[in-house]
């Protein structure tokens, strides 16, 4: 059944459908409506979990870790500075191997103080050991939260489901809400271990020596890589049951393309229109939407982009002194390929700056004319088309 929902409320519906037992969070724009909607559903009896308003995001994550160690299904959500404040607990969560799902609604990390979207808040948590999934719209976010629990509870790693602030979080669109019975079939309640077993007392996360530390880290690293395969399977199964599936990356018109555009998040939608328009003008353009950022989808990237001549990466984020983060990751992942495309980096859409299809078209045309790629990214807002 379809309903008109904002992306935030779509995520809240997913939390309800996933029968989450425990939610601890702290409000921050633009994530707050998720939190409010869950609180409302619990108070109205539509959802039976427990809600805890922590005194900070740091404490919220600490509470989530403990609850998850106790064996219940846990959810939280945050944005921007809130995610930054969680930072050390994020490392702890992945090290504790807790299957937490967190919705992250991208927003600039101040200063300057602002509200618009910017993926730097989640991308700067790249090395915390969390699985990161970037979603294009509310529908994908809803479906991805449900898939995330399936993957997370299999491999025991926490997952961030990420949407763009305002573009996805506040755009109200029709969203298909799956049947609860089908969700229960897809995502049954797991018998997660309760690590606080009083009859079998133990010290969790005791001090370890270098060999043991390395052993646990290697195990975590390997398991994180395995998550890609699990996600592909979970996505396939979801598609069979509900008719929607997304892949870990989504290629569009890439089979015969000469030039490819790489995007993540909500800007992909406008890029789709741009590719159509370019194709209608006779330009062989294609698009690769990257959904899975950690673990990085090396195989898919090589498969879909390896044969192209030129690849454009548009980053709604910036790592000062280097460039767009997706662009750099992409370059690094393709370095060892025999044939690899020229990669052109752009930074744009920061703080929710509009990226209409025309801009993608113009960027593509300019890259087609370019003689060789550049190291330092070009900033879209300063370009004259």
């Amino acid at each position, binding site marked *: 059944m379809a309903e008109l929902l904002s992306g935030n409320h779509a995520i809240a519906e997913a939390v309800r459908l996933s029968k989450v037992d425990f939610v601890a969070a702290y409000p921050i724009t633009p994530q707050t409506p998720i939190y409010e909607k869950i609180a409302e559903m619990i108070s109205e009896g539509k959802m039976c979990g427990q809600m805890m308003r922590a005194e900070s995001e740091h404490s919220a994550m600490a509470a989530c870790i403990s609850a998850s160690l106790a064996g219940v299904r846990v959810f939280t959500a945050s944005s921007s500075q809130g995610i930054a404040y969680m930072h050390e607990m994020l490392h702890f969560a992945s090290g504790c191997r807790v299957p937490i799902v967190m919705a992250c609604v991208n927003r600039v990390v101040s200063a300057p103080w602002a509200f618009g979207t910017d993926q730097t808040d989640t991308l700067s948590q790249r090395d915390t050991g969390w699985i990161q999934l970037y979603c294009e719209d509310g529908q994908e976010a809803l479906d991805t939260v449900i898939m995330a629990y399936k993957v997370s509870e299999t491999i*025991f790693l926490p997952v961030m489901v990420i949407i763009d602030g305002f573009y996805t979080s506040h755009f109200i669109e029709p969203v298909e809400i799956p049947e609860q019975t089908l969700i229960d079939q897809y995502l049954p309640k797991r018998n997660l271990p309760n690590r606080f077993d009083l009859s079998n007392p133990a*010290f969790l*996360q*005791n001090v370890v020596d270098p060999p043991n530390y390395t052993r646990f880290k290697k195990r*975590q690293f390997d398991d994180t890589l395995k998550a890609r395969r699990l996600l592909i399977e979970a996505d396939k199964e979801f598609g069979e049951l509900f008719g929607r599936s997304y892949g870990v990356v989504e290629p569009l018109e890439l089979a015969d393309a000469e030039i490819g555009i790489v995007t993540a998040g909500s800007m992909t939608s406008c890029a789709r229109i741009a590719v159509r328009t370019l194709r209608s003008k006779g330009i062989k353009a294609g698009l690769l939407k990257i959904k899975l950022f950690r673990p990085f989808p090396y195989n898919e990237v090589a498969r879909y982009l390896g044969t192209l001549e030129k690849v454009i990466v548009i980053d709604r984020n910036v790592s000062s002194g280097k460039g767009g983060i997706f662009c750099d990751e992409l370059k690094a992942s393709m370095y060892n390929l025999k044939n690899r495309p020229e990669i052109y980096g752009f930074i744009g859409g920061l703080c929710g700056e509009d990226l209409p299809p025309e801009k993608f078209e113009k960027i593509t045309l300019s890259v087609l004319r370019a003689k060789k790629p550049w190291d330092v990214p070009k900033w879209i807002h300063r370009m004259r088309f």
Partner: protein
Amino acid sequence: MKKHGLFDEIMPVSKTPTSAHKTGLWGNLKPLYKEATSPCRESCPLNTDIPLFIFHMKEKDLKRAKEEILLENPFPGISGRVCHHPCEDACNRRELDSSVSVRALERFLGDYPFYEVPVSENRSPKKVAIVGSGPAGLSCAYFLLRLGHKVTIFEKESDVGGLLLFGIPPYRLPKNVLRRDLHVLLALKPQIRLNFELTGDNIFSLLGSFDYVFLAPGMGESKRLQVAGENKKGVYYGVQFLKEVKSIEDEIRRAIVIGGGDVAMDVARTIRRLKPDAKVSIFAPEKVEDLPALRENVAEALEEGIDLICGYLPLYFEGKKRIEAVIFQRTEVKKDEKTGKFLFIPLNEKREEAADMAVVCIGQKPLEASKLREIAEEEGYILVDHRGRTKIERIYAGGDIIGQKATVSLASSSGKRAAICIDMDAKRLDLPLDELYVGSKGFLSFKKYLKLEKKETRKVVGFSDLNTLPHEKIPRVDAKKEEPLERLKDFREIGYTYTKEEAEKESDRCLSCGQCMRCNLCFYLCPDVSIRRKADGLYEVDEDYCKSCGVCAKTCPSNVIEMVEKDGGAFIR
């Protein structure tokens, strides 16, 4: 041990306890649990271990709580009503909010129906004659009986109780409470001879048939003012009034009571009940803040509509046959720094008060001195040493007659002292009395004499010794009391004993100074898990793991932990 399989491989989980390392070998100090004396107990003339009986109440073991009181105090029901409670004045909790209502808790336990007390085995019991059955005599009899001696009580009146029976009106101390408390003593089977008049001669005949004699005859007579008109009709004297006057036939418009002690208050309140229409005024020589009467007694008198005028002594009584007025003179009371006695300094201000009746309550004095001239001093007082001995061998004395402040608990205390010293003399025990003292006020402990005392009785725990962080401010629980006008209708007891809930609430306020209350704080806070709970609720320290940090001693709310050297030093072991 059950393993989670995968789950122990993905994250570090240790099931090895920290006991793998004997960290205690590093430290050279260890905690020593040593309970000490609370200031309330130190100031109690009977040495009742107040924090201990309150601890039993907290543990909801009322039987043990009462047993604990009966070890030092034969009459908890009585002292729970009339004691001048120095314990509450010494209470450490006053620094936090207000003192614990110890007297009300004692009254609650006094009313708890349990009367059995153990008697020590005694192979050569002595026969002891006790003269007088007031608090001192009864107390002496009680402790002697518990020590296995044979006791005969001689009483002048036709019933035992002395001042308790006739000197304190029933609305403060009902007769049934007295009888109930005496039941504990009577169950120990003393011999009782009533209507026995003490004379100078029969003391010596008593010495013939008894091994020891304890004299506690009390004060037989009221002090006189020795002013003009004192013998007019309508002038009465305090204790005699309380004892003899059951109703007043004459029409009384204004009654004047002279004095500032409890007898004055009791007399005024009795007149208020007998003559509800009369105006009753108390004229006391002392300042309001120095009145010797109990605070509660003064407050209740005022509540009942009695006037209190301080700083006056009568000059003379006016009237023809019957008094019509009392002429007062303004008086200043000063304490003589050397003798500690109060001096009354007349000032140049007079005051005339009309009165149909006056009751003089300025204190008591011993019976006619000549009767006991062999033992007594000039004024009739009997001097005793620190063991309660008079100048004649085998004769001990106690109570008001030895010239101490006239309170029930001091009298009982002197009875206890005599009982212990008689027992020591009978057993030829040469024990310095210091060893029986608790604190520094010179009151003897029966518990200590029976070698049942486990606490350090020389160390008194002050407020600054306590960790009061775990305690919040809690208001005192006041027992319910009737409205003043309701009380005046009859002589029924005023105020109710705590309900069980009130008693629990008030006992929770006790800071438990020097008394381990099994709060487990040391157990929980020990960073090396070296403190264990024993089956009896107390704690033991595993020196293999205690590394001398002292957290337990610092945080103990009751100051019962002290850090001491480990035996042999740390490194040698």
